[in-house]
């Protein structure tokens, strides 16, 4: 494998932990990843040495806090190849990033009858904000359907995009693992006059991403899925768009001047960062992307391709007739989230039995209910990989599943 996983595991203190006296096998990184010491230390160091509010004090440690916070913004910008650091708005998570776009750009630019195109594999975070606008002002949603092998069915994409104002789409499905080829889609959307929002919550942790190559207008990412802390994420948007958008929340930090009869807004990105931000979390986010860069995103990707192939094959060999996998079989077009149904055993029972062996997998609808309806399944079990997983973890999954089968066998 292209990553030295044995060495990487040592960077994650939680992996030393035992659950029910067994080695922790964490296979739920698509939901949230574990954190390396580098991230924990960066946050701890701030609190112990320089912590003060940002952008406010003139004293030394306030300046140090501000510098560290802004340096984190630059690291995140570099990680997704943003042209300008000021194009990164710190938010709480991807959900807030998408809502920010819906509230500010959406409420300025979308009116009754305007079309937003989504795909059937979106997370609720990239559905509900648009449904809210549909309820509030009658925008119309169109959905890109799926093919039989769980990819986007682009046969009618021209029609779907015709007259649309926005294409809002995930770069990688958190359920199917499917990777969507954003570049060509974005160019088709632009040709149709639509802007493009990319939900990169799953893509940013696992792929080398380039917002210019994607030709995107808005990109949402969330730190906790990419080795960073929870409570911080980023919205990237082209500067002209950010400049033209009205502010989101009102309060301190986002203003230039406030009088009794009005206010003027701060420059971007601070115009969108009302109130004291998640300072230590932003700094942890910066440390997380540095850690990923040091591993090398190309190696992160090839490690996951190998591990996903290994696991799909192992599941097939051991439990082939019992398991139905929802997601592409071609590892070149998918990430390391593997969703499946186990014949005769409900996803919650599977994950309960796996917990006995300290194997952590997710069971449920994965916040993608429209997709679950398309698939015709109420819930799946999902195992997902990251940089600290290896073949032994995949083997533990397969063994625990075989045990579950025995346990529930009639």
């Amino acid at each position, binding site marked *: 494998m292209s990553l030295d996983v044995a060495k990487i595991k040592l960077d994650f203190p939680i992996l030393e932990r035992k659950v029910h006296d067994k080695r922790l096998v964490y296979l739920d990184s698509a939901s949230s990843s574990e954190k390396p010491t580098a991230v924990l230390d960066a946050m701890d160091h701030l609190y112990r040495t320089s912590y003060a509010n940002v952008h406010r004090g003139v004293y030394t440690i306030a300046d140090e806090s501000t510098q560290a916070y802004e340096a984190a913004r630059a690291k995140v910008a570099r990680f997704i190849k943003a042209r300008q650091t000021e194009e990164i708005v710190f938010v709480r998570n991807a959900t807030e990033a998408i809502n920010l776009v819906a509230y500010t750009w959406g409420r300025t630019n979308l009116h009754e009858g305007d079309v937003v195109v989504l795909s059937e594999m979106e997370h609720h975070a990239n559905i509900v904000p648009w449904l809210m606008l549909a309820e509030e002002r009658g925008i119309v949603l169109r959905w890109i359907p799926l093919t039989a092998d769980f990819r986007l069915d682009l046969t009618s994409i021209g029609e779907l995009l015709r007259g649309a104002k926005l294409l809002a789409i995930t770069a990688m499905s958190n359920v199917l693992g499917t990777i969507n080829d954003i570049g060509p889609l974005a160019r088709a959307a632009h040709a149709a006059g639509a802007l493009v929002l990319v939900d990169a919550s799953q893509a940013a942790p696992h792929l080398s991403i380039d917002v210019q190559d994607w030709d995107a207008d808005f990109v949402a990412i969330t730190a906790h899925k990419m080795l960073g802390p929870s409570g911080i994420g980023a919205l990237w948007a082209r500067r002209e768009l950010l400049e033209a958008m009205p502010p989101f929340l009102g309060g301190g930090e986002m203003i230039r001047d406030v009088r009794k009869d009005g206010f003027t807004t701060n420059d971007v990105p601070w115009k969108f960062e009302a109130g004291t931000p998640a300072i230590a979390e932003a700094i942890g986010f910066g440390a997380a992307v540095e850690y990923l860069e040091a591993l090398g995103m190309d190696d992160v990707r090839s490690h996951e391709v190998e591990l996903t192939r290994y696991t799909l094959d192992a599941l097939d060999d051991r439990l082939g007739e019992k398991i139905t996998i929802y997601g592409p079989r071609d590892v070149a077009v998918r990430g390391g989230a593997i969703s499946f149904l186990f014949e005769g055993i409900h996803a*919650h029972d599977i994950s*309960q039995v796996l917990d*006995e062996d300290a194997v952590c997998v997710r069971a*449920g*609808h994965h916040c993608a209910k429209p997709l679950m309806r398309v698939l015709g399944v*109420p819930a799946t079990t999902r195992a997902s990989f990251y940089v600290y997983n290896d073949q032994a973890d995949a083997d533990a999954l397969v063994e625990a599943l075989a045990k579950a089968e025995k*346990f529930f066998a009639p």
Partner: protein
Amino acid sequence: MPGLEDLYREIILDHYRSPRNRGELPTPPAHKSEGFNPLCGDEVVLYLVVEGDKVVDVKIGGQGCSISQASTSMMSAAVKGKTLAEARQLISAFKALMSIHESKLEGESDGADLQAELDGVALGDLEALQGVVKFPVRIKCATLAWNTLQQGLDEVSVPS
């Protein structure tokens, strides 16, 4: 640590594999109520036929984990033929069964008041679900059917 055998007793797995009273009934005369667990997607559909003060027929549908579906099956068998008052007593007894452990953990009570709810109520197979309380995350799976029953009884008791 509680073992899987505490949770998945044989009788529970039996109800899961061969649910009793599965099916549908025409409405009316039956009353249909539905319960959802939005967090995990479990679903219970309940058809009740009440004549006078008696639950004369019950059918169940829905889908979900073994605990939610076994509990639904057991509930259907337990309330069929019971009076409305007896059915309500069963609901209280079952909920007491599910909360004794929790309230002891939280130090709220020694469980004596809950035990009182249980006294004199024959739970039968339902006792097998007691192991669920050792797995707090799963308690809501077991109670879904009973909340749906309560909702159904409330709806049929309202004079329309």
